[in-house]
């Protein structure tokens, strides 16, 4: 209940922040940003492990992004499939004799390649270290721009997304050290040559549920937290960071289960310790489209992994809790994450068990219980519908009214039974973490596109 009240507060903050952002965007012409000599260069880092099916198209799309000074570094993280061969063939890669300084230690590099077809493209071929963080760190070492943007190889960025996300940096380059963009569900959309031709809702209920979840998490949660400069996470699928700060905190933590969350928390820690005035922002319009699990088994694995990532970050940073030097992060966002994220499934299980026991023992009125359950359900649904409203007020990606109607209907099922399923998966994550089982389990993906280079 308290969690929903907090989310209601975040929803209100998010609506205000969104409206302000849209006004501000109106005064910032993107074509002028593109033409400005003062637009800073940015390096896109694309970790790729066994992405042979989509890598060529993905890189083509990234090179086609609208940004004046762009460098794309693909890190082939010891793929067993044809990822490297496909890249070599499609972009006629040649060995590049560039200096590579391992500011952050990584698994050894085999070679660095450059494409004569597009001098902005570099490919690092490295030994697999068994984690995405190591590949990203290699990319950070090779990056030459003051800003880096980490993008998943199986995701699609919209053409203007880089300029839009950098608008967050331009607002206050001295203070803004990282900016996150929104990640949306690609399933169901029509994709041609790695570009979204038509935004559609996916067909299966499990995917639609994730659409609602993503909308709530990004448009309400992240936007709301960013409003207080308390953003605890920037998605690993799409985020911009100041390179020198990432180097200062030692890059992404190798073998961290949730490397994106871990990095942002360590950035908060470092910046507070250095007593620097900073802002970690979220911009809701730069969009990254990503494929979400289509079956329950994969979704269960993903959610268990996310929860392991959460524990894996919260536990090493437990010393930050309630310490004055870490400011509001230590007093608000970290306790929130411990109570309402980490302990939430445990609290829910305890709650359900207590209620059932109370009903059996007859100490709880059945009618009161049903009414309270209905209220909890209605209140939570209100928040879900609120996130759809926010989407409607701002970006309206789902233009067909029937799709919006479907979204609204699915909001009714998000808190029963979908929420209870995620609770079980998160409990599995806790159990796996306690057993020391941190291994990466593959998630079944359909693949976004197999089209050749555009």
């Amino acid at each position: 209940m308290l969690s929903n009240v907090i989310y209601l507060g975040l929803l209100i903050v998010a609506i205000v922040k969104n409206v302000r952002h849209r006004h501000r965007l109106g005064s910032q012409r993107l074509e002028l940003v593109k033409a400005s000599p003062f637009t800073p260069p940015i390096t896109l880092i694309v970790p790729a492990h066994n992405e042979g099916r989509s890598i060529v198209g993905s890189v083509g799309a990234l090179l086609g992004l609208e940004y004046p000074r762009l460098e794309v570094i693909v890190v082939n993280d010891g793929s067993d499939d044809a990822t490297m061969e496909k890249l070599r063939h499609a972009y006629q890669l040649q060995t590049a004799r560039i200096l590579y300084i391992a500011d952050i230690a990584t698994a050894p590099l085999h070679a660095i390649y450059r494409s004569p077809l597009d001098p902005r493209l570099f490919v690092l071929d490295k030994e697999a270290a068994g984690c995405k963080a190591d590949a990203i760190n290699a990319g950070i070492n090779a990056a030459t721009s003051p800003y880096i943007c980490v993008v998943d190889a199986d995701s699609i960025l919209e053409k203007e997304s880089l300029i839009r996300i950098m608008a967050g940096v331009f607002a206050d380059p001295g203070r803004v050290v990282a900016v996150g963009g929104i990640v949306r569900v690609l399933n169901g959309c029509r994709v041609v040559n790695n570009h979204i031709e038509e935004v559609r809702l996916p067909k299966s209920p499990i995917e639609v549920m994730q659409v609602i979840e993503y909308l709530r998490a990004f448009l309400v949660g992240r936007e709301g937290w960013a409003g207080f400069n308390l953003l605890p996470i920037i998605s690993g699928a799409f985020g911009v960071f100041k390179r020198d700060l990432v180097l200062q905190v030692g890059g992404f933590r190798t073998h961290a289960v949730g490397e994106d969350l871990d990095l942002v928390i360590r950035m908060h820690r470092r910046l507070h310790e250095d007593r620097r005035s900073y802002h970690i922002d979220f911009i809701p319009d730069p969009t990254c489209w990503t494929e979400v699990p289509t079956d329950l088994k994969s979704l269960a694995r993903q959610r268990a992994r996310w929860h392991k990532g959460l524990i894996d970050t919260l536990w090493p940073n437990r010393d930050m809790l309630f310490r004055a030097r870490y400011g509001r992060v230590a007093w608000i966002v970290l306790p929130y994450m411990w109570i309402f994220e980490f302990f939430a499934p445990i609290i829910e299980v305890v709650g359900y068990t207590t209620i059932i026991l109370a009903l059996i023992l007859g100490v709880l009125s059945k009618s009161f219980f049903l009414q309270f359950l209905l209220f909890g359900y209605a209140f939570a649904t209100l928040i879900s519908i609120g996130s759809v409203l926010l989407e409607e007020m701002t970006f309206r990606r789902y233009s067909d009214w029937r799709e919006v109607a479907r979204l609204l209907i699915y909001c009714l099922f998000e808190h029963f039974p979908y929420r209870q399923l995620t609770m079980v998966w998160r409990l599995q994550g806790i159990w796996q973490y306690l057993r020391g089982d941190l291994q990466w389990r593959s998630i079944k993906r359909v693949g976004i596109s197999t089209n050749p280079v555009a």
Partner: protein
Amino acid sequence: MGFIFNGIEKLGPTGLVLEAILVSLLGILLLVGFIVLRRWYRARYFHKRNQRTVALRSQWDDILSGKISAEDWRFNPLDCDIVESILLDSIEMSPADKLPPLLDCLRVSGLLDMRIYEARTSHGWKQRTALLALGRTRAMEAIPALAEGLDSRLRETRIAAVRGLGRTARMEAAIPILDRIVTGQFDAPERSLKNALVNCCRSSPEVLINYVEQTHGPVRELLARVLGELASPELGEELVILASDVLPEVRASAARALGNTNTSYTLPALHTLAADPEWFVRLRAVVALGQIENLGKISILLRSLCDANRHVRQRAASVLARMEPQLHQILEEVVATKDDYALQAFISELERSGAIERIVSGFAGSGHHSAETALMEVVTEARKRVELSGNAAAAAAGSR
């Protein structure tokens, strides 16, 4: 509604929960209703707007020439908005000689005066929208109203005024910004200021020189950076003075500017800057040397190739590797430096540009066997070293 809640309250705690359920359900209904209504309204509005846009576009020449009186569209908010949008878009896209009829239409219809009035009297987003629209008009009479916006106590409004002045792309619009910047008290994002000044001072960058001379610290750096983007050959002497500035950022900007001014002052000034104590000034000087056509730069670049900083070395190598006719001579001189890092950087760049094979084949056909054999040995050795057999060697080389 009140009697329902009164009745519920009589139920005690159960009533409270029922009340909460009702409020939540009401909230859900309101949200859904709002979404549906908003969709319906927007669909209707855009349909109507599209129709009016087509109609006004078909009469555009008459609107512009005044055959259709401004009174016919000026007092209909939708028509007025559409005409203004078309006018401002046209102004932005038009060359200078096509501007007068568009500006006349803005003036005669009263749209310009309306925006000036809004910029002066409105507040919040309305004022900011007016300031940006005024900037897009590129009209001289818009500048005073925009300048007043610079004195707003709200930062967002000041930013809108800066952007508006920048969009006029008029030198006169730069003066209010510069006058405020030199006080050192003007608070606006550096990037917005620089972009506005670049747009306004493009045709006459010399206006910046006086202001650079009057300022100190970060403001001086900002203005020098703008000057670095806009410098023309006429500014040669002034730039040489800036090249000896106490602020490294200013010297770096002077180096950047000198790259656009190939005068008799350029090479000596860049020679000095390429030996600057700050690495980024040296780097800027090397980049600028790459932009000028003067063989005298080879000796400076060779010195930079042995620089302690890897970025400077790499850039110097990149510039040298592009001097195709002199590559043999340059390679000999690089070998003569006996600096392994310099040689590696240069060979790397030659390999990257593909020139290495031509040099090797050139040596094969030359006839100076003993000298060439010795040189080739060094080159072959250097190429081997450049090979990335492992990170450790590369990291050690780079961290130098």
